[in-house]
Structure formats: C-alpha cells, structure tokens
C-alpha cells in the first residue's frame, strides 16, 4: 500500500523538504535549514507545520454528543460548543489508550474529532454509524510560537483571535475554514483546517507573513520538551491514562464510557509506574528503548528521548516505578555506557 500524501505535498517538495513515511503518510521531516533551526523558530517566533496526517472524523446529528460521551474518557459537559477538549479512547479490556484525541466542538451537533494518523479508522469505528472520515477533504496547518497570533492576524484575523482551546469557523479567501487554539509544541498557537484546494494558498500566505516551515523532527523535539505524550511511546498498548499521568482526562462521574470498568479496576488496585522526566548531563541524546537503571538494575526503558535544543542537554520520558521520586539519581544505559540521569518535573521547558 502506498503512503498517502498531504494536499501540500507539492509545496513541501518544492521547498526541498526531506520527506519520510509517518503513520501511513509521507510527510516532511525537515526543510532546508534543518530541524534545530525550526525548533528554535517555534520557541522564539512562529512556525507552520503541515499536520494534515492527523485525522478528521466528523460526527453530526442529535445523538453526536452522546456518541462521543460514551466513546471517550473526558466529559464534554465540562466544555461547550466552540471549545476543544483533549480526550482518550480506551481498550475495553485493559484500559490501554488506543488513541489520544482532540475534539473540536464546532457548534451544536457538529464535532470534528482529530485522532492520530494511524488510528483514524479505529476512532471512526468506535464512534459508530454517522461518523465520517473527512481527512481527505482538508489540510490542517498548525501555526505555533510566541509570535504566531501576531503574524497570523493580517492574514486571517478571525483565526488569530481564537481563544486558547477555543474553536471557530470563518471564511478565508472565500472558503470556509475551521480553527482552534490548540497545538503540540508547548507554545501558544492556532490550528487551521482549510479545504484541500485552498491549502497551498493559505500556506503561501502564512509563509509570506513570516511563518517558518517546520517538519516532524522539530515537532517531536518541541513536544518532548513540553512533556507531551506521543501515541506509540508514552501512550498505547499496555499503557493506561493513569500511568501516563493523565488521570485528569478521565471523568468518572459522567456515566459509562468504553474501558471504564477496566480502568476503575486498575485505579482501585493502584498503578505500578508513572510517566516521569529525566535529564542527563551533556549533549548525548538518550533514545527510545535505552534501559534505565536503578542501582545497576534495569527498572524501565526510555519511551522518548532526544537532545533538547532549548536546554542544550539530553532529556527523556519514561514510565518509572512509582517509588521513584523527583530528584532521584538513576542511570541510562547508552549502548553500554552508563550515563547519570536525574528525575525532574515536567515539562522540561515551561511556557
């Protein structure tokens, strides 16, 4: 099966992006200046990511609210139309996080559910009849960074003014777009879903306005610094929301949802591990899968790790035994060399 491509694929190739397979898609890893420069641009100014590989599953109708409430862990009644909410889809048997999702409650009976690329079919299935995968109809641009709103304002003022975790719709150049004050970088920003045919024009407009194109490489180091989980690393088969430190995403008092019984049993028994941050001295990146040692004994493995461009040293996330405390000194086995590591609070880089 060939990988899907974004409506912006030709734009990326014209910019000489390095394209890699990701979740069944071919997407930019980085552009000409490299992922470190893109990372720094997001921390200091404004960047644009093509995140069209994220799914959009549209759920409409009078029972749409109820369908989402029964499928996902978070409680829509804590927000309102015109708001976005982070939520989880759990495995009914063991409460593993099958996907972590942002729901855009666009208005009344319309919800745009945004799963991870490779989980779109699974999420569509969990929402039942009437949930429509509209991923192919649009592109999504993530406009992120401390100057993102300022730079977006002359291009698309309605989107630039959306509240943090707010959702809105407005016309841009004659086409209806949906946008939200959301992102995955630890910076303020706006994500805009634009009809596929108009995606290249919006990309052009925002890059002329000063947004620096950024790829998956920078996106990963940015979210890692922000301590944000990535499905398949900090969430996924065998990992439940409580272990990932995301108990706030689960609302026990809202009624039944998929995986509630399984997760309740886990909660009552207590979890044995919890997501933590680790820092190492020096620039050498701790990488996914490297063993984490306590008194010479492997107690966990790095779930995500890299060089932190902002901090200038290595950082890692890992599910560590619950008796490990902040400030504890552990070690990471870097291909046979034990590198000292310290348990630190998350996020690594604050907003």
């Amino acid at each position, binding site marked *: 099966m060939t990988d899907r491509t974004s409506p912006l694929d030709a734009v990326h190739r014209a910019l000489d992006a390095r394209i890699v397979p990701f979740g069944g898609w071919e997407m930019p890893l*980085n552009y000409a200046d*490299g*992922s*470190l420069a893109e990372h720094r641009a997001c921390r200091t100014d404004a960047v644009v990511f093509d995140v069209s590989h994220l799914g959009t599953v549209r759920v409409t109708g009078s029972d749409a609210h109820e369908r989402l409430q029964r499928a996902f862990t978070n409680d829509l009644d804590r927000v309102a139309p015109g708001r976005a909410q982070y939520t989880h889809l759990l495995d009914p048997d063991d409460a593993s996080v099958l996907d972590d999702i942002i729901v855009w409650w666009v208005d009344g009976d319309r919800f745009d559910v945004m799963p991870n690329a490779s989980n779109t079919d699974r999420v569509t299935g969990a929402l039942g009849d009437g949930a429509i995968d509209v991923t192919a109809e649009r592109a999504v641009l993530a406009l992120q960074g401390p100057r993102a709103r300022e730079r977006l304002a002359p291009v698309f003022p309605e989107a630039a003014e959306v509240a943090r975790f707010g959702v809105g719709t407005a016309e841009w150049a004659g086409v209806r777009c949906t946008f939200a004050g959301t992102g995955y970088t630890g910076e303020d920003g706006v994500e805009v879903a634009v009809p596929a045919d108009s995606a290249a024009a919006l990309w052009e407009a925002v890059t002329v306005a000063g947004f620096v194109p950024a790829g998956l*490489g920078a996106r990963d180091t940015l979210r890692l610094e922000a301590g944000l989980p990535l499905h398949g690393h900090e969430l996924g088969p065998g990992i439940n929301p409580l272990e990932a430190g995301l108990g706030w995403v689960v609302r026990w008092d809202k009624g039944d949802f998929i995986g509630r019984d399984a997760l309740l049993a886990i909660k009552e028994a207590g979890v044995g591990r919890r997501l933590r941050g680790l820092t190492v001295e*020096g*620039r*050498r*990146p701790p990488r996914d899968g490297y063993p984490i040692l306590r008194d010479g004994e492997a107690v966990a493995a790095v779930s995500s790790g*890299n060089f932190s461009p902002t901090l200038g040293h290595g950082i890692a996330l890992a599910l560590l035994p619950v008796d490990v405390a902040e400030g504890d000194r552990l070690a990471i086995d870097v291909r046979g060399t034990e590198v000292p590591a310290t348990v630190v609070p998350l996020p690594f880089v604050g907003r």
Partner: protein
Amino acid sequence: MNLPEELRYTKDHEWVRIDGSIARIGITDYAQDALGDVVFVQVPDVGTAVAAGDTVSEVESTKSVSEIYAPLAGTVVAVNADLADAPQRLNEDPYGEGWICDIEVGDADLDGLLDAPGYQALVED
C-alpha cells in the same frame, strides 16, 4: 554535493585526507545531509590503537546514531576537541572544521579507498 578531488572516501560515507603518515577523517557532505543536525560527537581517546574497520567515533543527530569506522589501521594521534561544544561543525564544514580525528597510519596501502569519482558513483547508485 561537495566532493573535494584531493580526498579519498569509503563506502561508509567517510573521507580521508592523507598527509604524510597521518590520515585525517570525517564524514562526507552526503552523510551530514542524510544525518540531519548533528548534536553530539563521541571522539576517540588520543593514543587508541585501531584496526581498519574498528569503530572510532559515534555521530548523533536528532534522528539517529551513526558509527564512524577507522578506514585504515593505526593510532589516534589527535581529535577535534571543538566538537564537544560545536558538533554542528560536521554539518557546516564537513571537510574542514568538522574533521573528527587524525590517525597515524604509517605507509598505508590506500587501494581499499575510493577516489572522488568512485565515491560519487557509489552515492548515485
């Protein structure tokens, strides 16, 4: 792709600059571009004796780790200490300030190394 004519190359995308009995080594422009931003370089200790094909260094980018192999047998006589704080030299100037180490190789047989056209053919293959 920048490929200086005076250098020798290996199939592992390293370059070798022979100066008397000293072989200076680094990674090619092609290699640095494929690796992406280099964030860490582990250089060998001066005095280390190496056989041809031994791992002498590790180059890490934000996306991967690459081992650097000794192209010739000998003894490490100098390392690029600047890389500790400036590993990006491998990206910025791979054949110059991005050198990794010098190996005393004596009167080495260079027949196993590629010349620039030979390396270019390998990369384009």
